[in-house]
């Protein structure tokens, strides 16, 4: 294994392949940077070119692109509070407040450094998981997947803010929005008002842009100021890297969490950043998450790059894509004459290993490239809102249109955007809505399959009970802790 890994490294480091990897990295950073464009767009863009390509060259191009999307998408999340892709929403929670304080460079430095480390850890996890992947994946039966979905949903509770009722309603609304479209187990359309656009359900990039980006545009216009409230930018990139190093355990923890969640087939990696953010909020002491705590940037950024490594495992070994990006990657592999499946571990092992190396190398190059860009791009946060917003609005509209190339995308953008704005001014938490939206289909699917297949017996499975206990602790533990701290505070007064 080690020998073949070295062999694969020499294949990857071949100059012509490195050139293609750099091409992929450049593209990945650009599509990550532009709100609304993500891995899916980048992949479909390259698909026509890889037809019949040498697999190693094609892999360098495709994986190089995928690896750095969550490096590039950090910029808009931190600087303007607009998610660069669906995987970097949680970064907004603390990254944007930091930019407001004029510490955009520091946040960017920490974020990029964590992206790099996270990506490398993701690559290592992919490498280590290769021999044990098959039995691991088959251990996720439908009841287990259902309980994991529930665990993800209860994470929404952690992000609910002050009012549990608002948080719960926000999550429920997300689940309901997620139920729009065709039901998973039967071809029946729900809440579609006979519109063909709604029959596929709403797409995540549009909802994410609407719920996070639209409100911030309106807010910026009303406040008529630049994002950074101070006139000069303080705190440099190095300070951010220092912050990341100080929190090395958080980085490693979040990265491992990220790659594990990516690894679980059928859960979808889109909530990874929120899970890492929630877990960080829960475990970091004395935190001020949500008000510009650098650790609130470190946790999701370490996780979202690590996710890619994990999510390649079910894709390559079982041909089960975990996201739109990996779905297209599967198609790309076929076009290059490769077929995902157990063969990727035997006769095609060099390809798999070259994917691991490409992930690691691309993450390093991508992060370094982005660090050079920090200084010029960070100045964006000094531009007054009314001068920046009209251009962002154009970007937002074009970005949203890329999901389905449909007018429905634009109407959804405005409708959900208004909902998001009202929630902002009334202090309703928006993350639960998004988590609910993403997990709705999995929740429905695995609940139904569990009941149909096992009756009520599945509730007795040991794994199911264990996850159930974790959920209860997560939900009540927070409430109890809060009560204790409040009563302590009162006593203190």
């Amino acid at each position: 294994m080690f020998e073949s890994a070295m062999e694969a490294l020499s294949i990857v480091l071949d100059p012509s392949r490195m050139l293609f990897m750099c091409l992929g990295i450049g593209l990945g950073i650009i599509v990550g940077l532009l709100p609304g464009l993500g891995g899916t767009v980048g992949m479909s863009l390259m698909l026509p070119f890889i037809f019949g390509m040498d697999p190693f060259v094609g892999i360098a191009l495709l994986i190089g692109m995928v690896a750095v999307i969550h490096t590039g998408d950090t910029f808009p999340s931190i600087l303007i509070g607009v998610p660069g892709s669906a995987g970097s929403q949680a970064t907004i929670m603390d990254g944007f407040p930091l930019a407001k304080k004029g510490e955009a460079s520091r946040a960017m430095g920490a974020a990029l450094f964590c992206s790099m480390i996270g990506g490398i850890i993701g690559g290592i996890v992919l490498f280590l998981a290769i021999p044990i992947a098959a039995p691991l994946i088959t251990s996720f039966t439908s009841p287990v997947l259902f309980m994991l979905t529930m665990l993800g949903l209860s994470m929404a509770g952690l992000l609910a803010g002050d009012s549990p009722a608002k948080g719960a309603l926000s999550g429920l609304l997300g689940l309901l929005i997620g139920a729009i479209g065709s039901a998973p187990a039967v071809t029946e359309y729900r809440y579609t008002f006979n519109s063909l656009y709604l029959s596929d359900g709403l797409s995540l990039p549009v909802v994410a842009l609407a719920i996070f980006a639209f409100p911030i545009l309106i807010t910026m216009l009303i406040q008529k100021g630049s994002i950074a409230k101070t006139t000069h930018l303080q705190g440099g990139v190095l300070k951010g890297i220092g912050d990341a190093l100080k929190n090395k355990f958080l980085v490693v923890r979040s990265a491992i969490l990220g790659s594990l969640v990516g690894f679980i087939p059928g859960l979808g990696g889109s909530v990874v950043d929120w899970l890492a953010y929630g877990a960080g909020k829960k475990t970091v002491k004395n935190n001020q998450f949500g008000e510009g705590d650098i650790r609130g940037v470190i946790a999701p950024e370490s996780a979202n790059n690590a996710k890619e490594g994990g999510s390649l495992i079910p894709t390559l070994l079982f041909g089960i894509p975990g996201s739109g990006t990996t779905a297209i990657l599967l198609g790309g592999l076929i076009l290059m004459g490769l077929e995902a499946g157990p063969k990727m571990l035997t006769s095609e092992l060099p390809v798999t290993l070259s994917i691991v190396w490409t992930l690691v190398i691309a993450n390093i190059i991508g992060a370094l490239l982005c660090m050079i860009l920090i200084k010029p791009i960070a100045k964006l946060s000094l531009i007054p809102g009314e001068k920046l917003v009209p251009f962002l609005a154009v970007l937002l509209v074009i970005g949203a249109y890329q999901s389905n190339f449909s007018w429905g995308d634009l109407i959804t953008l405005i409708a959900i955007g208004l909902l998001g704005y009202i929630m902002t001014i009334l202090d309703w938490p928006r993350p639960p809505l998004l988590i609910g939206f993403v997990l709705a289909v999995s929740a429905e699917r695995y609940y139904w399959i569990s009941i149909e297949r096992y009756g009520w017996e599945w509730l007795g499975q040991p794994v199911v009970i264990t996850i159930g206990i974790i959920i209860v602790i997560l939900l009540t533990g927070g409430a109890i802790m809060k009560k204790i701290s409040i009563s302590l505070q009162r006593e203190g007064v």
Partner: protein
Amino acid sequence: MTVRKMYTLTLLLILTLFLAGCQSLVLISPNQTSKGEVDYQDTLLTMVVPYQSGGGTDVFARFMTKPLSNHIKNQPSIQVENVPGGGSITGTNKYVNSYSKDGTNLVTTSASTHIPYLLKQSSVQYNLDELTPLVGAPTGGVVYGSPDLKIGSGFELKQVKEDLFFAGMSPTGLDLTTLISFEVLEIDAKAVLGYEGRGPARVAFEQGESNIDFQTTTAYKHNIAPKVENGEAIPLYSLGQIDENGEVVRDPQFPDIPTVKEVYEEIHGVEPSGRVWETYKHFLNATYTLQKVIWVHKSAPESAKNELKEAVNKLVEDDQFKED
């Protein structure tokens, strides 16, 4: 009405299926020589794919563009245009409604485009009768079971004591044909629906969540055939192929696996017949034999259609292409 449509499809197929056999591509258009000449010089052909890029149909379409273009005079480039949405209905509707019918626009559809048409879903605005099929790629399917069933082949299906569980997506498309085959054989398998695709359904089989499953030709050869060798899966029967007489025959890809028909004959001693059997054949046709089809507007200029047909004829006969 629906039945009539099914017959149209079947007839269309039977008429032109003489090229079927061990080939991976079936020529659907009649072999006529063109008289009018059409000039595709400097024109750009568009291939509409009503799916997101990267899916099975998209990959098929992209595979076809290069060789197809090579066989058209002046070798015009063919660009693939993805129009996703509505489970392929949006894109196909758009093709018939807003793409110009001058023979420069083609569309690739798959089973999930044909089924809503057969079932007369209200959102369908296309009529397959108004499209001319150029070329199609058939696929096959094999039903296999877990060794826990303690049987050696499909002929012993009636002796299974265990409860049968089948993992599927939804009662349409490819799953539907398998479900009807259960009905033909009167197998009492509980269909657990809602899986994300054939891939996750295969994982469910490996987990023991289901114990009877099917996969299409490529997926079976890649993922299940090794399992069969290790004794982790047992092939039960193949869904078969429809021959020129409209009969179900052995799949040339799986000459050693009996078809549904043979299994039925073995169990019941008579040939299958009746409504369920007829329905089975229709769906086998619509979902497998016509799994992926490239069409052009029927009202396109004759000369353009002929040129395209001729290109496809040459393509199917091209030995080099067959090897791919």
